[in-house]
């Protein structure tokens, strides 16, 4: 169910109910127009989506209220790390429709989507790692996607309904890289996955309060949308100068950073990743940072976070 807006009338039937906007209690509600113009009732495509996705064991959302904290970087490194085991199959859905970065950070920028009788085939980065992004459908990387909410939601639905993710084989992970905020794309993913189930969300933040405060909003969203929270990753925590090895904190955790946030809200802190310029460079080149710089402190932080996530969701490769 969509959360009931705070300014709704007392007998609100819920914005996603069949009678939204038309029930008796809707008269005079400030949201009535929005509810009546939106498609109401349960989405007839939901069973089709759960049919498509039923062989996928874990569906994980990568969220963050704020932009530029490293959601796409984290998603790509998590997928590379999971797919390092040849037995594990991983898919990545880029639901950031206006700013798709996944093709670039995963090194599959100029690929194209192929169509088969089973639907769209995702782009395979490795035998066991496939990717879907609107980036593959744009004429050039400069083309802007100037779409309003409903069109973006429609695209996301196609990613889930029309893409042949699994070829009916079992799949271990489907990771969702999301845009910043708590709006159309997020609601679309949560609603479309309602029947097939979401394993949980990993929230990415940076240590400063401006980012933490957006993450609190995102946690509030998870609570309202009933998405389980796996934990929080603190990115860009501290910077070690490659020249003198001196450490500085660029994004200063004035309010205690992610540690305090997790303690206050009683959610797991998955770990802190230091700021390493080579992570950004790996992303620009679309390669796996964990493979290239396995000994660096940042790679070790990543590895320990990924182990923790596997533990928290009880994943063990078969």
């Amino acid at each position, binding site marked *: 169910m969509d959360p009931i807006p705070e300014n709704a009338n007392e007998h609100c039937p819920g914005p996603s109910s069949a009678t939204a906007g038309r029930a008796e209690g809707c008269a005079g509600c400030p949201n009535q127009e929005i509810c009546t113009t939106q498609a109401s009732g349960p989405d007839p495509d939901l069973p089709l989506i759960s049919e498509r996705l039923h062989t996928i064991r874990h569906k994980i959302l990568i969220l963050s209220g704020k932009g*530029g904290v490293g959601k796409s970087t984290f998603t790509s490194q998590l997928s590379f790390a999971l797919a390092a085991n040849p037995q594990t199959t991983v898919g990545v859905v880029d639901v950031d429709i206006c700013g798709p970065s996944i093709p670039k950070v995963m090194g599959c920028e100029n690929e194209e989507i192929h169509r088969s009788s089973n639907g769209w085939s995702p782009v395979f980065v490795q035998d066991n790692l496939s990717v879907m992004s609107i980036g593959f459908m744009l004429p050039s990387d400069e083309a802007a996607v100037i779409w309003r909410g409903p069109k973006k939601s429609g695209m996301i639905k196609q990613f889930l309904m029309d893409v042949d993710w699994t070829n009916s084989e079992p799949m271990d992970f489907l990771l969702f890289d999301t845009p*910043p905020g708590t709006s159309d794309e997020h609601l679309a993913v949560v609603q479309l996955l309602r029947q097939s189930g979401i394993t949980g969300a990993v929230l990415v933040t940076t240590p400063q309060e401006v980012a933490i405060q957006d993450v609190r909003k995102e946690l509030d969203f998870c609570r309202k949308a009933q998405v389980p929270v796996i934990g929080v990753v603190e990115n860009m925590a501290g910077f070690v100068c490659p020249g003198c090895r001196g450490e500085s904190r660029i994004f*200063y955790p004035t309010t205690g950073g992610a540690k305090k946030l997790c303690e206050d809200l009683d959610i797991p802190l998955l770990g802190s990743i230091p700021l390493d310029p080579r992570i950004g460079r790996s992303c*620009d080149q679309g390669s796996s940072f964990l493979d290239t710089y396995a000994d660096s402190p940042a790679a070790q932080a990543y590895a320990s976070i990924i182990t923790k996530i596997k533990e928290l969701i009880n994943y063990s490769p078969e």
Partner: protein
Amino acid sequence: MSGNSTVGERLATIKHVVLVLSGKGGVGKSSCTVQLALSLANQGHKVGVLDIDLCGPSIPRMFGLEGQQIHQASAGWVPVYVDSEKRLGCMSIGFLLPSKDASVVWRGPKKNAMIKQFLGDVYWGDLDFLLIDTPPGTSDEHLAAVEYLQEWNPDGAVIVTTPQEVALSDVKKEINFCTKVGLPVLGLIDNMSGFVCPHCAECTNLFSTGGGEGLAKYMKIPFLGRAPIDPNLVMLLEQEDKTVVPNANDPNPDPDAEKKRTSSIVETYQHCELSKIFAAISKTLCEKLDSKH
């Protein structure tokens, strides 16, 4: 379009309307907006900042105005002012939320309505500049702002980027958005361009280098300047008391030491190294806007 007439009335007393855009999140749109506003206010202009990032409003925290309320006057919503002389005011959904943790889970149409209300109902009075801080992307909020402002010819957009390639492709999208909707691009700021280590003064390019200037040349838009990461600025935008001059380079600050204080964030900002760069950027911007009129 009777609904838009109030937007027109509000904008009649505002000389320049500038949007701050970027396709990518976290490149520093809000911090650049704040710095442009502080620089312009310091140069004697009257400035308003409108935050239309409805799902992640950062402007209240950055100006140190968290927890403030918006007052309703007969003329409309009164902006929250940063300084006692009321040279710099701002408006954000952050002031309307019950708590700072509350999420705004809204779809497009509701966000559009809020933006329209901001443009129509806020009593800015006489302003030299209205800076509009936007969320990342090219979607509802951007279309709404451009649509409601269209008839009153907004001056254009300042684009913010960071130098790494991943950001540049999103920013190209944003520039093409501006072309498509007919919004002039006033220039591009290359933000987070390098970080000077406080220990050894060596500059590390955290997010690659030179990307912004190259992009500006490639897209044939003016390049406004390059701003490195300044830990003092990060601290100033973070700390709750904006009258304390930040000193992020001191690894072991003495808690009992007398803190250097100022009268408002406009003055504190002048103690940050970055203020010089943004003073130059805002002067360039002013010249550009004046030559247009």
